[in-house]
């Protein structure tokens, strides 16, 4: 199982280590640094490495490497999932997951790590259980604690720890009872030069924010559940009911959580909300090139496309860009060679256009590769797959909660090849 954890920052310093069994020397990370050096980009460091005596399994999150050391055969996914869970927990506790914030809360971090893993076996990873054992830092409490001599550590056994619903604690009370659901869909797509869809799918997620008193039992049903191809549920969802009736029946965790994720991959269902007309050319002579991009609406179901943004990773030889945008602003970062065009709202009457010239290093040959375009966009109040919630019912409690559903469509990995 998981033997040790090292937290390593962007520049390769180990700033925290935790061992759950015997202590393993830091020098084990040298193998990792060697590979990191070779990989150039931190994103390209392979997640599973073998050294003579250990295996190093790592993730890269928020410019930090979470590197775990294991000595025996373990499922690597188990370790990777756990590491992401650790990062999530830090995010949850401290609002962000960065070197600074971790260093500022070292003792809490250490306590958390001790509580999350015992001898390499996960112990408590549910946020609500952890929060009952180790309270998240906040200014008010540290003042109160200083005055009263109170502590940051709960001294009773968390109720969720052993019940059949470990994700929920008993005795939750609210004056305003509310249950909100966000249906967020991301379009992953690859379009080719001519604008034809090479590949497209929708990754959907139902995020919930539930603040309800007592032990409510909720049922959420959809108008068209058969759209969904593959679902993963929060452990609270009763799978049998979904299988037989296609409704989500569950006792919710308290607070924010991901109720389900789903996947729509049959291509005819994936609408592409915008089209992109582009022309990027580099000339054989003269060390320059031309760029011309226009974006227009396609299948957007009558809604407005917002937050439109185009990102292009230019070839290394491109020195500068001299462009004019009919709408929005563009920036070209000389060091990373990234061109960003921030458009904003898409106006179907007056299509945004970016055009102009690119100048290249003198004497450099014409670049071999064609840069791909990455598109970002948002559409409020629309789930592009057409998924709709039909109703939410509550059983087990007597009060009437506030209910609400929001829809949002975003671009995920949405790429246009040139």
């Amino acid at each position: 199982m998981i033997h040790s954890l090292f937290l390593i920052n962007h520049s390769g310093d180990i700033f925290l280590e935790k061992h759950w069994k015997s202590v393993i020397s830091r020098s084990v990370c040298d193998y990792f640094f060697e590979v990191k050096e070779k990989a150039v980009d931190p994103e390209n460091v392979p997640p599973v490495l073998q050294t003579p005596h250990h295996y190093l399994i790592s993730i890269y999150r928020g410019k930090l490497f979470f590197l775990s050391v294991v000595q025996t055969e373990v499922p690597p996914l188990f370790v990777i999932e756990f590491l992401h869970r650790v990062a999530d927990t830090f995010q949850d506790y401290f609002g962000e997951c960065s070197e600074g914030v971790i260093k500022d809360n070292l003792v809490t971090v250490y306590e958390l790590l001790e509580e999350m893993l015992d001898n390499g076996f996960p112990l408590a990873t549910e946020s609500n259980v952890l929060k009952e054992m180790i309270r998240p830092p906040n200014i008010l409490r540290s003042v109160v604690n200083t005055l009263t001599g109170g502590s940051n550590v709960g001294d009773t056994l968390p109720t969720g720890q052993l019940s059949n619903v470990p994700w929920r604690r008993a005795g939750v009370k609210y004056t305003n009872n509310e249950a909100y659901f966000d249906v967020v869909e991301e379009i992953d797509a690859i379009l080719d030069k001519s604008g034809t869809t090479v590949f497209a799918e929708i990754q959907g997620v139902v995020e919930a924010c539930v603040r309800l008193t007592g032990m409510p039992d909720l049922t959420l049903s959809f108008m068209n559940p058969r759209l969904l191809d593959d679902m993963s549920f929060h452990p609270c969802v009763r799978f049998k009911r979904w299988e037989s009736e296609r409704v989500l029946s569950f006792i919710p965790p308290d607070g924010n959580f991901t109720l389900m994720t789903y996947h729509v991959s049959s291509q005819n269902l994936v609408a592409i909300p915008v089209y992109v007309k582009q022309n990027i050319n580099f000339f054989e002579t003269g060390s320059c090139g031309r760029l011309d991009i226009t974006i227009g609406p396609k299948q957007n179901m009558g809604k407005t496309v917002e937050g439109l943004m185009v990102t292009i990773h230019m070839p290394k030889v491109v020195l500068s860009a001299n462009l004019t945008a009919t709408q929005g602003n563009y920036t070209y970062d000389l060091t990373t060679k990234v061109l960003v065009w921030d458009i904003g709202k898409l106006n179907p009457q007056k299509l945004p256009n970016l055009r102009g010239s690119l100048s290249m290093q003198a004497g450099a040959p014409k670049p071999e590769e064609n840069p791909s375009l990455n598109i970002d966009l948002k559409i409020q109040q629309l789930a592009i797959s057409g998924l709709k919630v039909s109703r939410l019912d509550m059983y087990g409690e007597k009060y009437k909660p506030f209910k609400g559903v929001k829809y949002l469509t975003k671009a995920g990995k949405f790429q246009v090849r040139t």
Partner: protein
Amino acid sequence: MTDSKYFTTTKKGEIFELKAELNSDKKEKKKEAVKKVIASMTVGKDVSALFPDVVNCMQTDNLELKKLVYLYLMNYAKSQPDMAIMAVNTFVKDCEDPNPLIRALAVRTMGCIRVDKITEYLCEPLRKCLKDEDPYVRKTAAVCVAKLHDINAQLVEDQGFLDTLKDLISDSNPMVVANAVAALSEIAESHPNSNLLDLNPQTINKLLTALNECTEWGQIFILDCLANYTPRDDRESQSICERVTPRLSHANSAVVLSAVKVLMKFMEMLPKDLDYYGTLLKKLAPPLVTLLSAEPELQYVALRNINLIVQRRPEILKHEMKVFFVKYNDPIYVKLEKLDIMIRLASQANIAQVLAELKEYATEVDVDFVRKAVRAIGRCAIKVEQSAERCVSTLLDLIQTKVNYVVQEAIVVIKDIFRKYPNKYESVIATLCENLDSLDEPEARAAMIWIVGEYAERIDNADELLESFLEGFHDESTQVQLQLLTAIVKLFLKKPTETQELVQQVLSLATQDSDNPDLRDRGYIYWRLLSTDPVAAKEVVLAEKPLISEETDLIEPTLLEELICHIGTLASVYHKPPSAFVEGSRGVQHKRLPGSAGSGESVESPDTGSAAGVSDAPPAVIPSQGDLLGDLLNLDLAPPATTTGPPPPTSSGMQMGAMDLLGGGLDSLMGDESEPLGGDLGGSPAMGAGFGAPPAAMPASFNAPVSGGLDDLFDLGGGVGMPSGAYSPPKSIWLPAMKAKGLEISGTFARRAGVVQMEMTLTNKAMSVMTDFAIQFNRNSFGLAPAGPLQVLTPVSPNQSIEVALPLNTVGPVMKMEPLNNLQVAVKNNIDVFYFSCQYPISMLFVEDGKMERQVFLATWKDIPNDNESQFQIKDCHLSSDAASSKLQGSNIFTIAKRTVDGQDMLYQSTKLTNGIWVLAELRVQAGNPNYTVSLKCRAPEVAQCVFQSYEAVLKN
């Protein structure tokens, strides 16, 4: 306020300051002080000097303070064992606390303190906690048993904790069940054959019930455990599958993949015509696809596993090609894996799409990825015949780009396409030749030369092209040199008149001016062929080659089966069986997929119950090659009288021979080419291919008495590339005749060609004939077991002795023996069963790849704690350090570095045991001093004594 305040230091010195605060009367100040100590500890500062002061803070009602002190204890107890004892009383008291949180915390912390003295006190509290009324305490205690086992396995067995742990599998609380399973699985890993997890339908049922209710992590443990079970019949298999399928919808990808493993394995038992089988296949695809939308690290592991799954059951994902399309911002490790799977899924139906994608990738930035994409195009051409033409034209387009590495990759794959579709695409050769000058990588140069040689008759200036390569012959890599030699010989056979000079030149370059044995030998072979019978040579060298197979990189089926059983594990990421890389995993069980419905026999049979051990030896890599080689050798071994030409020239007569070859040989070559010649050499058309391949699969004939040229040849072959003279002690009497009703056995152990052998002389000193010999080993430290039955084919008559060599493997059951190298043997014959024990030199377990990299050696040497080092003296040894080094190398003890300090030679050596244990050594040799000093470092210090004995034995013999 943040914890960074804990790092402010004062002038007086941090430790002094903290000491004062820890001993303060104020509770709050104490707690702050402990927090400062912990903060220092987490960043690696040494605060062990504060041990007594921190331990004093342990007796408190404040849970936070207690937890902090516990954190400190876990970190430093090992370095201060005597002090740690001070904490024992508080622990024992806390284990009786009314608050279950404190009871659990105490037993959990005690288990983390790896100090023997504390461990002694742990047993009683642990026993109570395992039966605690509160499930939270029980589940914590279950994990504690695993911790204790890691520290002191014997203690856990003696105290009966394993049985208690097994009882917990039937616990009413699912979380306790899950932790018990996790703990047992971890313990079982170090006892492969202990049968700790005795899976039967009842326990399986309990596990399946707990599966629905426990945490996600618990589900992983339970699913991995379920995967080890072999259902009795297809009905049971189906019912387990039905109960596992809902896990495919779990949000945790590790749960999903573990469920996939169980399903993939149990599916084998379902009859294929069953409706449920089809349903299950359909259910497997969506979750696998979903894994690919997770974080890149998860995607990578998922892709490695999908690679296995599509090889075993391509039907699952055959319609999902598009999800493997590469996005430009995928990390490179994801891109390469996706590409691999795309080729595996390529079929006539989707080839157009795939090709379009691959062409797109070939223009990307990343060089490695582009290369692989170009290669992939070639593989598609070979795999999908209908697409070959399009692939070739795509490759030509790419060659037109003139991007150096693209051109080189394209040429390499085009060579393979020619092998698959001969005489179809030769029109492209002209284009290829245009790019000759830009090739700077050996593989591409070799491929191009091969093409020129193979199609020499169609390339007008083939001789010029090859000649241009010949100029820098000595600077080329071996690969290119070999290819050049063959190509020129082919050219000569095709156009003998114009190329005599060229062939002479290359033959002399290869045979006289090169010290590469492969090159030299191939040169001689061609030379003799040409000089003996040029027409036969033509038939051999220009023989029709077998077509290359569709997929060259498929995982070998038995390995694939084993890997399918390990889906989701490290083995599945490395595509190697766990035994190949898990360090110190002694005798890992080789998992097999269960047979399909109806066969019903038990599949996992790791225990070698019968004398005829299961031959678990890894299958030969190139099975067909072995047969080919056999044929070839048989052919060659015809009496030498039949050779038609003059005897092969010796090196002194080289020049003469060459003249002769070109004089006499040419006539017959220029004559009627179609005339069939005596079939003494041209018999096998496959022979041409056989030449290039090294004798990879050497048939292991051990017991046959040495007779006939065939065996001689094999002996020779085995010796090549093997350090000669692995030490083997002289035979000694193991079983005296008086103890065994007239059977006397003397024997020894030896390692020959990488195989451990037990060599015995059986002498019949009784009055009657002995027959029906069989042999069996008791469990032993390194899992030695006979690799086959004892081969005594003829009855042994009175006063007769026979020699037997028994090949051994190391995949048998493991049990630690005292001494470590003790082996208990039972021998049976028609009279009775006899037992004896003998000791084998541990040096025969030193494997051939035991040479560590220098860097690794250094790091490992530092990494192993000094406690594990042991030192020995070897007296009266009069070898120089170099002689000692080469002698040791003969027994697979490899010298990695040598250093001379003050006339003293220090040799740094490494050796690896069959079970993956590395032993590092430092051998000190003082000139003129017959006493050597050996220091051994090893993670398993128990072996040091035996290794030392081997050192002594090897050096003195």
